[in-house]
């Protein structure tokens, strides 16, 4: 059963608590991915302490947030990573964490196998070392595959292999699926967005218009076997909508808590324009979620702008807010990758250099020099498989 429109309208107006909350535990990372959406690399000295992190979990438990998507940076770099994870699970907040695999030893894999409330996704951006390492750095393919092997050997079921789709790995879709199958993993494909260091490489790496068509057909053919976290709803303009919630969830069902406790509308929107406040502020996260000016305004009906006359608007809704923002396009109007071709024209009208720069930069080498990784390149709705709708 699919999600009926009235329910989507409820989602558009915002929920009492987020469904998909991404929590980046640290900006530190041992890799240096070219497209890192959080411009990670160096730890920030203001990062939440263990006690503060537990305080956040207490709030999430009270708000009945079912699970958090933990990322970074490389979250497992934090010395208290397992302490935080164990605390969350003990407080009925499930954990899905994203990793580049560098610390998924056989022991860690065994630990993951032992918990139903723990889910892991390993980031890999190519089916071969050549394609992957060009984006994620020398040796990162071998590291990630080693992690897949350890997870499979430990008997972890249904872990995820998470791929950010680029111009270079899209020709490898079948190989990526085969790679995931080999380890009993589920393939998850997500969209490259011009966020963080991704803004620097977006022109070079984002899929071509022809590749988007191929991807769309491939996704339709694979249905629920392949997860997308509803990343690709802008492709709905090609025909029938893909399964999932066709809606930008920023500030409505999705948000980000960054390592220093700043709360943004979406993990792909790390910029002052989308900053609601900090979990250390009086009232904490719950107050921000319910009452911040920013989130309230994001829950207002959005203006369709130039998309208003488009036949695909009901399912595409103008695409991704963050993608528009960081490419310098108006938020009311087409996505830069609009399948009707309106994005290309709109992009041509943007004055070069006028695009907003992602705000905090934790790259090891200052921004636009581009540096460093994060392992979690997932859409905030990733993992929310909108399967059943029980109505009466």
């Amino acid at each position, binding site marked *: 059963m699919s999600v009926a429109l009235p329910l989507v309208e409820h989602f558009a107006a915002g929920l*009492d608590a987020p469904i998909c909350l991404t929590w980046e535990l640290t900006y530190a990372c041992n890799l240096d991915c070219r497209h890192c959406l959080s411009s990670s690399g160096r730890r920030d000295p203001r990062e939440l302490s263990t006690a503060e992190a537990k305080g956040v979990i207490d709030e999430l438990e009270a708000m009945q947030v079912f699970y958090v998507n933990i990322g970074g940076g490389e979250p497992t770099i934090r010395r208290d990573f397992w302490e935080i994870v164990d605390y969350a699970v003990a407080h009925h907040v499930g954990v899905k964490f994203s990793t580049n695999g560098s610390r998924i030893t056989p022991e860690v894999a065994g630990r993951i196998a032992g918990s139903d409330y723990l889910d892991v996704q390993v980031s890999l951006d190519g089916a071969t070392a050549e394609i992957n390492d060009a984006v994620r750095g020398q040796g990162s393919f071998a590291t990630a595959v080693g992690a897949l092997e350890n997870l499979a050997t430990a008997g972890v079921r249904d872990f995820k292999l998470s791929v950010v789709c680029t111009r270079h790995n899209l020709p490898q879709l079948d190989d990526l699926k085969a790679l995931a199958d080999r380890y009993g993993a589920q393939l998850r494909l997500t969209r490259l967005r011009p966020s963080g260091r991704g803004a620097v490489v977006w022109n070079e790496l984002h899929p071509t218009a022809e590749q988007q068509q191929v991807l769309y057909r491939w996704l339709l053919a694979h249905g629920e076997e392949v997860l997308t976290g509803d990343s690709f709803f802008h492709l709905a303009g090609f025909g029938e909508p893909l399964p999932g919630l066709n809606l930008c969830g920023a500030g409505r069902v999705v948000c980000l808590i960054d390592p220093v406790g700043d709360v943004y509308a979406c993990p792909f929107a790390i910029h002052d324009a989308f900053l609601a406040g900090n979990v250390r502020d009086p009232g904490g996260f719950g107050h921000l979620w319910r009452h911040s000016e920013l989130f309230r305004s994001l829950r207002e009906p959005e203006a369709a702008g130039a998309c208003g006359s488009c036949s695909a608007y009901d399912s595409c809704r103008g695409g991704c807010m963050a993608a528009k923002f960081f490419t310098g396009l108006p938020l009311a109007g087409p996505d830069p990758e609009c399948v009707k071709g309106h994005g290309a024209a709109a992009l041509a009208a943007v004055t070069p250099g006028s695009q907003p720069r992602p705000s905090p930069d934790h790259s090891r080498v200052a921004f636009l020099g581009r540096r460093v990784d994060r392992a979690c390149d997932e859409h905030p709705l990733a993992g929310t498989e909108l399967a*059943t709708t029980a109505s009466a």
Partner: protein
Amino acid sequence: MTSVLDQPLGVAPQVSVRPERFGALLYHFGTRRLSFLKDRRLLDVVERLDGSPSAREACSAAGVSETALPAFERALARLVETDMLRERRP
């Protein structure tokens, strides 16, 4: 085949229920699936299941009319199918 209405049902152990304005969200930690109850009364029924000898009695306690009952039966059956609800064993 007997109707789900005649069974004693309960929320499955790995399932969490979160009330929302439109009804509720259900999350299953085992299957990692999310479901929606698009109706406040359906939430009321679900919340009464554990204390009722059968789903039918939970429905009537929640004030579900005879005419509305088939829709509730379908919704409950769907929730059983996806393991959000289970038959309670004595």
